[in-house]
């Protein structure tokens, strides 16, 4: 019905190139003004994935930053000055995040920076901060690759890097008595700088404990169809599945497993199960029973300021549940606040970084401290879905419920 001439193809090419240019330009943010004299507000800049593929955690992180801003301003501000946040939208795009942080530093002239969400975006964004010798505390970028670049100004405000986030879970599995310890395991993972090392860390520990690997594959970030991966896993028949996921692929993979009637005894998944009711809506509440995950924050934890944070969050954004990503962002701001208050100035960013390298900070996630690369030195909590609610099951001193071994999905609905 339709025909394409050489000229037509040239037009197509021109149109495609134009589209790419527009895509790049469209995400550039505007100017919002920066801080100035000593009585002016302290301006803190960040860019978050408020739209695009990572919009869900990005918006939660924005909420966390805003809760901190409200609380710190109500408490007299930072160094006696009010705090003003400038938050741009990077549309989940690695190119735009670089543009945004360059603009925050050179055009908005912000006084301080806070990080973005995901290792994918924090990798380039932290490089911009490092080049400009500005402190960069980030709430959600735990890839080991973040910390092998010799950066001095980078700090990750969670308990451990991605490769160690499943450590407590793997240690628990490894010590299970004979007959209960899974004999075989499958390791599907998203090709993502956070998810892949997370799974690799667990796999290494479980292989050392004698758990045989019967399936391991990485899938591309834009994978939508998980049926064939699940079909292959089902043929391998593992006792345990450790899935490295972000949110949407976590839901997609679990639904594909249910469709194929592939329900291994044990199921650990990164990221998606920590999304509260969105996880239950995504896969069905009955199907969450027994799913394991690693998590940085518990609303019930008895950590300094946690109850106040949870109450303020619920006041600002409604009750029900506090997203982990909002808590992580709040903790990143707490780390920044601690450094500024300890140094007593925002002018010497090197001094702020030096102080964080040498000290521990109490946050709502618990105490955080860092090595010379900015990698944190603690352990993650392990969560498990039980009776339609997320519980902390490991380590024992932080547990809100007894751990159970099996994933027992109850079918659709």
């Amino acid at each position, binding site marked *: 019905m*339709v025909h394409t001439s050489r000229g037509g193809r040239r037009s197509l090419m021109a149109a495609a190139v134009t589209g790419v240019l527009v895509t790049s330009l469209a995400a550039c943010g505007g100017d919002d003004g920066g801080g100035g004299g000593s009585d002016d507000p302290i301006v803190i800049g960040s860019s978050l994935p408020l*739209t695009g593929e990572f919009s869900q955690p990005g918006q939660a992180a924005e909420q966390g930053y805003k809760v901190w801003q409200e609380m710190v301003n109500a408490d007299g501000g930072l160094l006696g000055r009010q705090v003003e946040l400038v938050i741009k939208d990077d549309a989940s795009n690695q190119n735009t995040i670089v543009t945004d942080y360059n603009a925050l530093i050179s055009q908005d002239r912000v006084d301080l920076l806070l990080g973005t969400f995901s290792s994918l975006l924090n990798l380039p964004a932290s490089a911009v901060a490092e080049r400009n010798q500005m402190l960069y505390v980030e709430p959600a970028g735990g890839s080991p690759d973040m910390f092998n670049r010799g950066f001095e100004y980078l700090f990750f405000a969670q308990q451990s890097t991605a490769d160690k986030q499943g450590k407590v879970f793997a240690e628990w599995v490894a010590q299970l008595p004979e007959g209960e310890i899974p004999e075989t395991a499958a390791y599907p993972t998203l090709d993502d700088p956070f998810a892949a090392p997370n799974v690799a860390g667990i796999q290494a520990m479980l292989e050392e404990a004698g758990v045989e690997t019967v399936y391991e594959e990485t899938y*591309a970030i834009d994978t939508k169809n998980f049926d064939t991966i699940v079909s292959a896993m089902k043929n391998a028949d593992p006792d345990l599945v450790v899935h490295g996921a972000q949110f949407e692929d976590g839901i997609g993979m679990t639904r594909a497993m249910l469709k194929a009637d592939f329900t291994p005894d044990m199921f650990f998944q990164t990221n998606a199960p920590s999304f509260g009711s969105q996880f239950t809506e995504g896969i069905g509440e009955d199907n969450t029973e027994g799913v394991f995950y690693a998590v940085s924050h518990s609303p019930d934890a008895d950590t300094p300021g946690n109850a106040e944070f949870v109450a303020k969050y619920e006041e600002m954004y409604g009750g029900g549940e506090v997203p982990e990503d909002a808590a992580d962002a709040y903790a990143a701001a707490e780390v920044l606040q601690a450094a500024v208050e300890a140094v007593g100035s925002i002018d010497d960013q090197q001094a702020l970084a030096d102080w964080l390298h040498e000290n521990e900070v109490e946050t709502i996630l618990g105490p955080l401290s860092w090595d010379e690369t900015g990698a944190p030195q603690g352990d993650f909590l392990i969560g498990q879905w039980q009776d339609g609610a997320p519980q902390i099951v490991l380590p024992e001193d932080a547990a809100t419920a007894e751990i159970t071994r099996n994933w027992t999905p109850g079918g659709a609905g």
Partner: protein
Amino acid sequence: MTVFLQSLVLGLLLGGVYALAASGLTLIFGVMKVINIAHGAFLVLASFITYTLWDVVGIDPLLAIVITTPLVFAIGWATYKVVVSPIRSAPMASTVLLTFGLALVLEGAMGEIWGNNSTAIRPSYADESFTIGGIFLPKAQVFGGLIAVAVLVVLWIVLTRTWLGRAIRAAASNPSSAQLVGIRTASVAALVFAIGIAAAGAGGAITGVLYPFVPGSHYQWIARLLAIVVLGGLGSLNGAVLGAILFGLAEVFTSTYVSPSWATAVPYAIVFAVLLIRPQGLLGTRLREDAVAA
């Protein structure tokens, strides 16, 4: 053999849904020479409308197609009249820019209305399968695939067996001559745009049941759909169907026999290879230039 048959079935089911989603894109290009970058956004919009009908009203999401499709048809018609029609005769780059902007507007509007949270439509059969001889057939994919085939057959009958279809094909191949024989090409264009968007709407209702989505999901869809219609031949409905099935099969077989990490890349490599040999795509033909210069 079971693994091969399983992959074949899953690939065909996936291709069927891709075909429905891509058919509108190729139809719009065929008649109007507009590359509708907003096509994926309309598909996601239909998913959100379907979600609302299912979540709020309780209508089965696949049966809701009878509501979603006319609704999205009307939105498509209005979009053409208000946004596309004024620049129809502009260079193709302008329409790409316009429809890209439209995609961003739709993404923003969906974010405002439904939020940027991931959304999933899960009817009672969403996580169930038929099992035949060791091969599992996900019910949602089977129902969705059958509906996709039914809609495509209706579309094909309209295009090949009705006066309207002849008018559309005439307007596509030679607008000036079509006008000479009394075809109102402007009205045909509006109708085709709306039909094309409606096809995306039907596809969106199905994909919404199959995969979770956010407003930003349209970027992934438009990349796939453009590759499919280029593979099949821009403007060819049969080509879009063939391209979609090949694309779906390539995705599934790559995942099964090579690696899931290559599953989204290999189909594009096939598109590239085909275009090197046949630049107009599998079933596309070269654009006819009117022989007589003015």
